């Protein structure tokens, strides 16, 4: 019998010209100089790393440190040098949004590392995004995609015929439809058909009315992401041979590779493009990772300022009666963690005796109560030198009950039947 040649090894050394300089990281959410803001691009690498403790003065000199830094910087080095010009620079930023140890039991969380890469314009309007660490040519493609989107948004913005927002989104939908398989195309069309105009005055130009448009996107993001998530899970199940709930941890690891969540993020993109990343990033991270995140400290802003309530948590607690109990209700992530267990089952007998989940909600309402995010808790505990608490393990904390402002919190968790907590609260209330 005739035989072929043995496996030959060929060294290929084709000419390539890439950005040679090391990555120069900029301040998260820093202002892009006005002179270049119109043509600049900002590439944000958002990870669930825990932000280093920093103060405003030192922030600029803090080196960036994240779990995928080396891989990301290598991808940056593959972006052709001509893509970043003095007149149209590309700004690289790292936003670390992982919950700090003070709300993860005092230790660095052992979560699977996560990453999202978002490209915005100089005003932080989202142009393109991907889930995972861009690898090889991924980042270059993401930047090219962002440029294409910007051109399209500009065209619509300057269009004398005044395209509606839906028409603009429709053009983006048309542009990306070919990248999806049939299942995702169907989902994309379904979401587009369901897209209505926001209440009140119609938004004529999503490029110009960013704040209003971002509010509209924020309102519908949870719903769209939730629906896409169902399709994604079914798709991922057959793509990666996932059969059991425990396989979801495998999926989280696979999501570090951009190809894994590519159809999901491609389908989502038309519905978030044009909105302000600075207002949307925590929601975006929550719907993607199914976990709450810690807001990024913005230049010149205290963490509490980022909260919706003008009264900071510390101020609110300080206004509590010294001897009266109160409750903090933990806001769940926008899209519940896929890995966390369901609420503990309550027996019929316990329910009849008033020890069910609804009874817990009722008894909590009797005390002063405030809904807070894990980020607010973290900021407050840090300010007050509070003891670390784990808000997610062994199961997600639903409430933190305080006998008084000076007492330590008592976590009431989804994984434990609520009977004991109800009895205790009732006893304290007597």
């Amino acid at each position, binding site marked *: 019998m005739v035989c072929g040649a043995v496996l030959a090894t060929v060294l290929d050394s084709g000419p390539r010209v890439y950005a040679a300089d090391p990555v120069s990281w900029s301040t998260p959410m820093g202002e892009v100089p006005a002179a270049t803001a119109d043509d600049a691009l900002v590439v944000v690498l958002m990870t669930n790393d825990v932000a280093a403790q920093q103060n405003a003065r030192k922030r600029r000199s803090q080196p960036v440190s994240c779990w995928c830094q080396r891989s990301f910087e290598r991808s940056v080095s593959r972006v052709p040098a001509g893509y970043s010009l003095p007149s149209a620079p590309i700004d690289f930023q790292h936003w670390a949004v992982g919950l700090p140890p003070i709300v993860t039991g005092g230790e660095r969380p052992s979560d699977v590392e996560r990453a999202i890469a978002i490209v915005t314009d100089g005003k932080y309007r989202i142009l393109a995004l991907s889930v995972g660490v861009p690898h090889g040519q991924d980042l270059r493609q993401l930047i090219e995609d962002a440029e294409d989107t910007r051109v399209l948004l500009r065209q619509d913005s300057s269009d004398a015929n005044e395209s509606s927002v839906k028409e603009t989104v429709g053009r983006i939908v048309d542009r990306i439809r070919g990248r999806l398989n049939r299942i995702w195309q169907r989902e994309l069309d379904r979401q587009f058909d369901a897209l209505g105009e926001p209440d009140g005055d119609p938004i004529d130009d999503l490029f110009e009315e960013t704040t209003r448009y971002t509010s509209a996107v924020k309102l519908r993001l949870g719903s769209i992401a939730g629906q896409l998530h169902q399709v994604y899970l079914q798709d991922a199940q057959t793509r990666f*041979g996932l059969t059991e709930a425990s396989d979801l941890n495998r999926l989280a690891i696979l999501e570090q590779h951009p190809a894994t969540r590519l159809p999901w993020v491609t389908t989502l993109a038309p519905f978030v493009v044009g909105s302000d990343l600075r207002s949307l990033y925590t929601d975006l991270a929550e719907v993607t990772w199914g976990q709450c995140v810690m807001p990024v400290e913005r230049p010149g802003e205290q963490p509490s300022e980022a909260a919706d309530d003008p009264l900071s948590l510390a101020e609110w607690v300080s206004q509590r009666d010294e001897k009266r109990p109160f409750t903090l209700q933990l806001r769940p992530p926008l899209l519940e963690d896929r890995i966390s267990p369901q609420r503990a089952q309550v027996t019929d007998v316990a329910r009849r005796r008033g020890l069910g989940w609804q009874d817990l909600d009722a008894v909590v309402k009797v005390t002063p109560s405030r809904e807070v995010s894990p980020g607010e808790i973290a900021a407050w505990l840090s300010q007050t030198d509070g003891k670390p608490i784990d808000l997610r393990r062994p199961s997600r904390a639903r409430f933190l009950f305080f006998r008084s402002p000076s007492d330590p919190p008592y976590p009431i968790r989804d994984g434990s039947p609520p009977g004991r907590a109800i009895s205790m609260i009732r006893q304290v209330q007597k």
Partner: protein
Amino acid sequence: MKFKLLTIVLLALVPTTAWAVSPPEIAGGAQLFTQEWQPHNSALGGDGLGPLFNATSCATCHQQGGIGGGGEAAFNATSIGIDSIEVYGRRVTLAVLANLVSQFHPGFVQPDGNVANVAGLPHHGGSSMLRGFHEKVLQQAGANYADEGGPTEAAEVRIANGNPIVFDDTINGYRIRIKARMYSRNTTALFGSGLIDQVSDKQLDRQVRLQKKHPEISGRPSTLQDGRYGKFGWRANIASLIEFNDQACANEMGLQTRRKVQTSDSTVRGYQNTSSDISDEQIEMLTHFTAALPAPRQSIPSDSAVDIRRGEALFNEVGCNVCHVADMPPASGLYSDLLLHDMGRESIDLSHAEPYIVRRELVTKDAEILPEAPAGFTASTAYYGNVTMMPITFESPRGYESSRPAFTFQAPSGPTTLVTSRLIDSKVNPDIKNNTVAIARSFTNQRSTSAVVRTELREKMKLQPTNFNQEWRTAPLWGVRDSAPYWHDGRAETLLEAIAMHDGEAAGTRDRYLNLSYEDRQSVLAFLESLVAP
């Protein structure tokens, strides 16, 4: 002229070591490989292409990375497999069952009247009635199919396989409920197949011994009935390249060979191709050509060399190399042990692997030879693997109850019997004069009474239980970059999906890979991407 030019190009690809055969023979094989076959072969007297076929030439499907490569999902061969059957009604005989199942698809009914649990769905040819049946099941699968016949892309492969097909009907007083599923086989690349052909059975035995050091891995050879090991095909159920070509001609193009009957149209019973459609010499030339196809190579871009080397080291470190063995001399850089491994439940296909024969002994005995095969046996049909014949119990164990099925079938996950035999020689035994008693005792009057008692020399074979629906030959990784989609049915679009799909014996290795850092995982992928078509 077109063929001549193509032949010159193809010959340029063939390494000079191949000239030991003879350039004209290889050139002839190259021409046959790309030849567009037509119905009717006046030279040989056969019916030529068809009546059923997946493509009109070898090169139609084998083209990725050059002639002889793999094929996209659109070229997948497809089949439908029955998971279970329930029949309600009075007494179910083989003829009744055959009639009922043929209403779902007649391809399950074999020319000898037996009912198999898998039917091939050749893409082209056949009567309009057969095409009607094909269309019906393809529609139920809910996937999109390309003009070539296979699913349009990996996602459609997954849709087709993921949608159970249910046939529920009442026919002639019987209610039949069938649960079935679509299966696909992706076109394998033939590069370097001449080297695989030369891998000895001893080497496969050596790999089995080596793998005993790894408790989680239990590779085993594909033991063929005739005592050889299989090395070709997704199930490694074909021993040699020439047989692989022989079967491909018959199954994929309906080119009957002297050894292999072409796929028949089950709606045109009684039709027989009276001659071969391709001669032995032509099969040999095809084999010379495929054997001479160069082996894939490794391509290392200078700026990725360190990464690729590191990826290879990690590939070995996590244990991929236990099954994806780099060298199986003379197939250097093959990255396969050519053994069968249990890949887990998600990889089931009812055209199963060869049962694992672990012991053989010759026995002589007087036996009843019946013209029909016994019920429940495993039979080889197309070269995709074996199928199971429906076992029929002729003596109904209980009386008729309308609420209970009179017949049930569940596709077995492994061999239904652990002892089997094959006939070596057979002679009429002159000492036994009355040869009908035993037959009547065992099979009553359902079977033909034309049997005779003979003395047989048989090889008795002891089987080891295996999950044969989910056993697959370790896919050679050489040329892997240029052979997407991956997995036996092309359901995996990317290498990452294919790695994640590893289960069964490979679950531990998969998890070790996933537990690597992101960067390390990318290095392993970079290494795999460096394995390219020649």
